[in-house]
Every structure is written in C-alpha cells, then in structure tokens.
C-alpha cells in the first residue's frame, strides 16, 4: 500500500468546510471590491451607487451594469497624491527589505553557527517578539523616540547632541519601526536555510585557500539564496501595504498607499476610490504574491 494514498478519499472530504469558508470569505469579497471600485460615491448608506438589487428585475440590473465606470482608476492615475503614494510604498518597502536583509543576515548566520542546543534557544528568542502585539511594539518605540524620551536623554547625557533630536514623525523612526517589527520574518527563513547547510562546504573552500569573504560570497551566500528569497518576499509584500507603522511613526507629509486607502475609507468615506486603490495595490503585488505562493507550496508540500 503506498503511503501517499492513505486516507486519500476521506481526507478529500476534510477540504470541503475550509474550502467553502475561504471561497466565501476570501475570494468572493474581492469580487465586491472590484465591483465597488467601478461604482460612484453617493451620500447614502452604503455610500456608493449603483446598487445591484436582484429583486428589481432584469432592466434595473442592466442599468446598474451600465452605470459602472473606470472613473476611479482614472482618478488614481491622474492624481499625484496616489501616484506618489504607490511610488513611496514601493520605495519604502524596497529600502526596508534591504535593511532587514543587511541586519537579519548576520543574526541568522550567528544563530546557525551556535551549538545545536543553543540554536533552539536562539530561535525561541527570535520568535517571542513576533508573538507580542504589533501595536505594542510600535508603541514601545514611541516611548523611546519621543522628544524627551530615553534615546534623547541618553544622547544628551553622553553629550553627543546639544539639543533633543526630533525622531518621531520622521522616516528614520518609520524605518526603525519597520525593521523592528519585521526582523523575525527575515531571520527565520534565512536561519532555516543556513542551518541546513553542510559546514564541510565552507571548510573545503577555506582549505583550498579562499579568504573568509570569498568563502562567504562564493559558497555561503549563493547556497542561502532560497532563504533570502523567502525572507525578502515575506517582508516586502506586507510592508508595501503597511498602515500602522507609517501612521504612528512617520510624518504626515508623504503617505504610503495603505494610509491613503485608510484615509479615503475612514475619513473621506469614499469607498469606491478606496476599493480602486486596493485593486491597484493587489495588481502591483501580484507577481511577488505568486512567487511567494510557489515557494510556500514547494516548502510545505514537497514531502508528500
């Protein structure tokens, strides 16, 4: 009896409930986002039109279809505010991901070189902050970075600065917040590939006369590329749509797309434009999302 077929048929039935759930609450909602992104804002409840009312008959439905338009997307493309927001989101995400890789790699490398027993401890230590609330971790940094916060007190006490430095509401604060929040997502996949690497490969390279930096660039780094890819995607995709961190730590003069979407939705009550912004964001992220899915699938399902 092949191991693969075990439970095969009953296990298929196990998929029914979660499948229905995901279609209903993950896939179908995107249909609504798409539909409302093609609608117009209205002062009504819900604040958009046309409304599709299946009971109103075929003619009404046809009229509703005819009223759909791509005006919101034209607005997004023509208004600098949105264009800048998309560009800024991608720039911030790319910069932050590069920083995360630079900071996360040495940490993951150090972890992978610890004795086995200590590796498990280090891994728990890296995971624990991930379990701690996102919002709380950002709040912790506001404590430190505010005008008379700990960082300025230390800098003043050490006479490194003569006046308190403005940290909050700057891009620096935002990058600190992003790197802080996403660091475990970068370290864990890197560590997973680095820990699996055979130490003999590095030893062979150095026995053959390669200096340490060459061993790293020619052997270690290329072999860790799958981990680099996973870590980069795991950080880049959510950072592009990030809302909380730029909202609380960055200044308000340039917004990321997550913030504009939030603003359109909650402050301006412009649901159609917010939906159009979400659709564009989704399209921008489609390629990295598909790459990530392939990676995740290969990793989890190769053992079948």
């Amino acid at each position, binding site marked *: 009896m092949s191991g693969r077929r075990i*439970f095969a048929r009953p296990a298929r039935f196990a998929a029914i409930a979660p499948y229905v*759930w*995901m279609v209903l609450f993950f896939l179908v909602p995107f249909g609504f986002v798409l539909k409302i992104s093609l609608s117009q804002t209205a002062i009504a409840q819900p604040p958009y039109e046309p409304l599709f009312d299946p009971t109103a008959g075929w003619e009404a439905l046809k009229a509703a279809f005819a009223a759909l338009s791509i005006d919101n997307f034209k607005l997004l493309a023509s208004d600098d505010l949105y264009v800048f927001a998309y560009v800024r989101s991608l720039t911030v995400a790319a910069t932050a991901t590069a920083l995360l890789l630079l900071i996360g790699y040495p940490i993951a490398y150090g972890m992978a070189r610890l004795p086995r027993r200590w590796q498990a401890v280090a891994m728990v230590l890296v995971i624990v902050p991930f*379990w701690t609330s996102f919002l709380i971790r950002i709040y912790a940094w506001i404590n430190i970075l505010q005008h008379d916060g700990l960082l300025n007190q230390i800098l003043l006490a050490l006479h490194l600065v003569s006046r308190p430095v403005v940290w909050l509401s700057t891009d620096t604060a935002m990058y600190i917040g992003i790197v802080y929040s996403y660091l475990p997502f970068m370290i864990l996949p890197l560590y997973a590939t680095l820990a699996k690497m055979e130490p003999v490969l590095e030893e062979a390279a150095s026995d053959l006369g390669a200096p340490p930096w060459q061993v790293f660039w020619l052997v270690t780094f290329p072999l860790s590329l799958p981990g680099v890819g996973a870590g980069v995607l795991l950080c880049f995709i959510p950072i592009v749509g990030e809302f*909380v961190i730029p909202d609380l730590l960055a200044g308000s003069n340039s917004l990321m797309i997550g913030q504009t979407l939030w603003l359109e939705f909650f402050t301006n009550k412009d649901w159609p434009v917010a939906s159009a912004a979400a659709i564009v964001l989704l399209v921008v992220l489609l390629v990295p999302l598909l790459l990530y899915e392939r990676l995740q699938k290969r990793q989890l399902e190769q053992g079948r």
Partner: protein
Amino acid sequence: MRKLSRLSRFNIASLAMGLAFLYLPIIILVIYSFNASRLVTVWGGWSLRWYHEFFNDRAMIEAAWMSLRVAVSSATIATLLGTLTAVALSRGEAFRGRTLFSGMLYAPLVMPEVITGLSLLLLFVALNAERGFWTVTIAHTTLTMCFVAVVVQSRLGSLDRSLEEAAMDLGCNPLRAFLAVTLPLIAPAIVAGWMLAFTLSLDDLVIASFTTGPGSATLPIRIYSEVRLGVKPEINAICTLVIGLIAVIIVIASLASKLSSSQGESAAPL
C-alpha cells in the same frame, strides 16, 4: 567542540546586538508601566497606579473583554478549519481546485491587511450583516486559519507515515486510524496553532477596524486611538498586561511543542 570553534567574535556580537534590539524596547515599556510619575520620561518610583487606572477605565475593560471573546472564538473555529485544511492538503489525493485552494490559503499570510479588511467589510455590507462581534470573529478566523493550517501541515509532513499504515493494516478504517494514531501525534501542533491564532487575533488592529461596528471596539482599536494622542502611562500598563498574557501562552505553546519534538521533528518555525 568543533561546532563551537566555528563561532566567530562577529557572530556573537551580531547575535547579542540583534537580541538586544529585539528586547530592549519591550523591557523599557514594561519598566515604565510601573512608574509613579505621570510624565512618561521622569522616573517617580515604583507604583501600580496605572494598573489601577486601567481597571477603573470601563471603556478599556469592555474593549479588552470584546478582544478576548473574539480571540477565543476565532482561534477555536480557525483551529478546526485549519486542521481540516492541513489534513486535506497533506493526506488527500488531488482534487479539483486544489491549486486554487492552496493559493487562497497562502495568500492571506502576506496579504496587506488593509486589502483583507476592506474586502471583508464590503462583503458584510453587501450581505447586510450587523457589524460587531461576529463579523470581527469571521474576519479573524479567515486570517488565522491559514496560519494554523501551515503549522499543522508542517507537522503532518514530518510525521512517520508507517504508523498510520500499520494501523490500517491492522484493520482500522481511515477515520479510526486518523483519530487513534494521527490526531494524538499532531495534537501539540494543533495546540500551538490555536495559541498562534489567539495571539494574532488579540493583536490585530487593521482588519478589526474595518469589520467592527460602532460601539464594539476591540482592545487594539482603543489602544490605537489613545496612542495617536500621545504616550500615556496607562497604555504602558495595558500593554504590559497583554505581554504577560501572551508570555503565559508562549510558555504553554513551547511546552506543547516540546512534547511534539520529543516525538519527532519539531513543528513549524512560526
């Protein structure tokens, strides 16, 4: 001790600095929650004043209660659905739409929360559902069941299949083999998955903001609106309480995964 000698000074330094970077802000936050002074930056001696303040803040308590209820119910539903998903994906034969299924499953893990939140809200509005406890619970279940599925799936993948086969060879039907052999083996991963779902739900601000209705704010929503107005010692106290609760959960989860790793490979790195 060949392994130890591979550890360079650079390795140790980067590890130490990395861990300090991860932990110092949280430690500072906890210490300042016991500060007697109203000014967050002036140390006025140890005090429980801000905890007292929190327990007298009705709106905060209500929000905390709402968050706990949502977290427990959504984590429970998510664990059920996530475990079924993991079993179907790692044991079931190919079925129509399997690619779509696993696609829908892995996308929410990285999908920006503003998109997930907005899309669910539009669904609830279209269905004319009253927004509040149930809509937030459904939204959180949708997000967290994917995490549960990944955790359980990686445990199922590392399981020795011959145990299940032996049970079937000895005359168990598939369901019985699953209940008697597989389920006990993956139980620690299921527990860890529940814990993860619980903390993710307790933590979420963006999706809850979209899907909740007036008058039913969760704890992160209330904390967020306070934080926007500036640092308040009371918030430090609430955050410390949440950290404490999560610490207890981590201890339970790590005990569970210890149980799991003593029976084989350790569970997912989440």
